[in-house]
């Protein structure tokens, strides 16, 4: 025999608006907080160039020709050429990141399973 269907409460318009705004704030916060806190782009560094000449920046004549055709001079190209990613990292930070990802999926699958059983029981009845 099928289980008595669960009757959810009706949500007020104010509640719907609050829920929508909360999600919106979360989305915007996730993107902009690292930017506002100056943490985004922390993985980049700048090379110390010996001199701002094409040769000093390890650019061959072929490369130099392309830079110049793109409208760059030695001075304006220097910033782009000196920009590098810094891939040094701590194993602790890597372990923490891995743990957060695994914990997230663990949380979602565990509570999804609990909710899924309620869905199946209501749809098909108790086995």
């Amino acid at each position: 025999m099928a289980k008595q269907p669960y009757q959810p409460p009706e949500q007020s318009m104010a509640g719907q608006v609050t829920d929508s705004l909360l999600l919106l704030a979360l989305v915007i916060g996730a993107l902009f907080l690292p930017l506002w806190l100056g943490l985004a782009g922390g993985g980049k560094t700048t090379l110390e160039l010996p001199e701002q000449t094409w040769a000093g920046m390890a650019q061959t004549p072929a490369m130099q020709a392309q830079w110049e055709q793109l409208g760059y001079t030695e001075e304006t190209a220097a910033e782009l050429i000196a920009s590098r990613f810094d891939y040094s990292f701590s194993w602790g930070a890597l372990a923490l990141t891995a743990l957060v990802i695994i914990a997230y999926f663990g949380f979602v699958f565990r509570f999804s399973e609990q909710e899924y059983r309620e869905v199946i029981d209501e749809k098909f009845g108790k086995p």
Partner: protein
Amino acid sequence: MSDQTTAYTAVHGEKISLLRVLGPGHVWALGVGIVLVGEFMGWNFAVGKGGAQAALIACWVAGLLYTCVAMIDSEVTSTVAAAGGQYAQAKHIVGPLMAFNVGLFLVMAYTMLEAGNAITAGFLIQTVAGMAGFEAVHDKPFIVLTIVALAWLNYRGVFASLTFNLVITAIAFLSIIVLFLALQPWAPTLHRLDTLATGLPYGWLGVIASLHFGLWYYLGIEGTCQAAEEVRSPARSLPLGTMTGMITLLIAATLTWWICVGLMPWEYLGQAITPLFDAARLTGSVALMVLLFIGTIFSTLASANGCINDASRAWFSMGRDRYLPVWFGAVHPTYRTPFRAIVFLVPVALVFALGAPLDQVITFSILSGLLGYTFMSFNIVMFRKRWPVGRIKRGYVHPLHPLPAIVLLVLCAATYFAVFLGYGTQLLAMMSFYIIASAWFHFHRYRYVRRGDQFTMPWPRPQGY
């Protein structure tokens, strides 16, 4: 209002559903249209993270990842043919919380991709205007215009918007082919692959790191199944449209890499906003510049258009199921589109497009996509376990199971590490968002969800329940 939350919207006592008007060509256009822009911008950040050779390796490794995604997705989507795509799959196979998360992955990935498209279109128009002597032209009005105009097109109807996509996607793809043929990289005159394509500036660690933006070559191809409720023959059209889309993208990605790395120093290419347009500039041909300007603009428009289509359908589906306020689950009585979801997501896209750098926006889009691919590897295993082959009718059965799922999971793990290298803070910020949103759903929002309504497919009880 409550009727709007079910599979249909009731207007004057008549039930209205989404229209089934799309064929395999539209599915191809939806998938490739969203993704092809990845050849015109964004992929080249992989060069910045690892060098030119690393970007090519990333292109092919990401191609393998997406082949697994396409195989898995084609099987599940040809069986769970419902609006919302992977969201509907998660609802039937894993459970409501996972479905809520998958819905958010889709909305975030596509809305940020849409924002990235608008940024690129605005930047290109500003650049070309500057080259033509109009230095006062600013990118911001064009960013706003792109997002608002395409939202309006989507508001008016899916058939018109996806037919529009079919045409402009084909033109954008042809512009890459024409540039490749005009450049003749196999008989180099302008093309200097031998001198410009340097080695691996970061070693093999850079190869792994470049996988991060390597996903950008293909990100969004899984969006084909968002239109499952609007396709005339889902079991045939969805696998056909998705697989031909992957083949198209693999060809376009390889040609794009070959064109660009033989024309630009890797330090420039790794930070360029419009690399294919820059490649056309370097040929010195005005005709090619005009063509690649048109190709880039068309690809951004096609992608943004498809993104609005997909993000709004995922948002609409979540509203219809009460995972979000039911107000979003309405279909327009005349145009039969999820009009409220379309309108609500416009300011979200605008905030991202006007307020964040392109590489950050792309990274958040990639991360949301990556979480979705991780889900898919578990999803297919659970699907086969709960309904083994033969127990329910499938439109397509992918071969070599569970190998594609295992390969997909391994490549996803490598890509998380790739994002961690250089963008670790953003990765943690994004995970924090999904953890808080998940807790909000399970402990607050789930009480508004009708349990039995979450399973609508005519399938037998899943094994083990």
